[in-house]
């Protein structure tokens, strides 16, 4: 299903088709494995905000939360790996993948966990500079995209592939920018959806509308954090699909496979 030449629009178009083909049950599985991780991130951020400048005195509490977040992160990586494989299968066949998506090779998973951990570490290390999230998102996107190319266990192979596919930096940067805009749109959509639901529910008798308005307002930091996590969960399948396709299309552009498929389709039409 590698049709159009490598470009941001072609990657986005095809990733939308792939997400449509993989929405059940693979996107649902991705969501189910990502929810604990996002929830723990909310808990961590909430504790930090609550502790404020006294946070340094609660190191043990924060470390425990970080350890649980890390465990949830590992679970989410398994979900992402299965979803990335489902995306690859869907892009090859053009149909919804079956149980084959669950058979993620252990070597690919190990390589992916290694590179995704680096991306996560870089995100937290550079978080205070503001570049951490963008840099970490790009790295983790490339990590999931190159996951299935890891056929040998080791630490050099996954890093080499990351460097190789990270070379198309203009395309990656434009994809990251598009997804940043998508995140803002998703944030607004989720917030609007919640407010519409609350407004509709307030018309129902026996509903404590005033209380829910306070709980689900932007002045409640937990609500804001949950909205951010919800938006991230919504765009995650698209981000993974886009990165899988980006790597596949980059690879086929190097080997000339894209041109061969392109000419075949032209001849057929």
């Amino acid at each position, binding site marked *: 299903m590698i049709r159009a030449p490598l470009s941001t629009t072609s990657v986005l178009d095809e990733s939308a088709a792939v997400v449509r083909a993989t929405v059940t049950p693979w996107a649902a599985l991705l969501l189910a494995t990502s929810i604990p991780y996002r929830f723990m991130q909310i808990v961590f951020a909430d504790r930090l905000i609550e502790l404020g400048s006294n946070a340094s005195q609660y190191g043990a509490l924060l470390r425990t939360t970080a350890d649980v977040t*890390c465990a949830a992160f590992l679970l989410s990586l398994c979900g992402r790996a299965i979803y990335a494989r489902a995306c690859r299968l869907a892009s090859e066949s053009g149909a919804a993948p079956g149980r084959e998506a669950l058979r993620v090779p252990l070597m690919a998973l190990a390589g992916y966990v290694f590179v995704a951990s680096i991306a996560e570490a870089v995100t937290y290390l550079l978080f205070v500079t503001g570049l951490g999230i963008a840099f970490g998102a790009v790295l983790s996107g490339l990590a999931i995209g190159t996951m299935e190319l890891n056929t040998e266990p080791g630490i050099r192979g996954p890093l080499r592939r990351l460097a190789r596919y990270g070379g198309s930096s203009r395309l990656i940067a434009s994809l990251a920018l598009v997804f940043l805009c998508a995140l803002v749109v998703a944030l607004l959509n989720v917030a609007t959806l919640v407010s519409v639901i609350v407004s509709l529910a307030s018309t129902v008798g026996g509903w404590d509308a005033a209380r829910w308005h306070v709980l689900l307002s932007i002045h409640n930091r937990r609500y804001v954090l949950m909205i951010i996590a919800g938006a991230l969960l919504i765009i995650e399948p698209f981000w993974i699909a886009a990165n899988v396709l980006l790597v596949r299309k980059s690879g086929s552009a190097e080997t000339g496979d894209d041109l061969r498929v392109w000419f075949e389709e032209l001849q057929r039409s």
Partner: protein
Amino acid sequence: MTEAINPAAARRCAVHQQRPAYAVCMQCAKTLCQECATQWDGIWYCAACLSTRRSATAAKSRVGGWIAVIAASLVILYLCTRFMVWSGVLLAGLR
């Protein structure tokens, strides 16, 4: 009990009887022609012994690769939690 070696056969390749021997495999002691003999680490081997040796080396490096990738992932995940706390405390302190 040692097997008697036919000197004429010893001078011929074990695979290609019509060709003269060029080297001896250091593992199975077969005589080999120039085409059949392969030097690896300065030692001559026949194709079968070389492939056995190479697959053993590959298996060894695969075990090493597994150990390296698991150990590195664990170390980085440990650092992840520390960076998470460190960045969080730093940011919370700035507020």
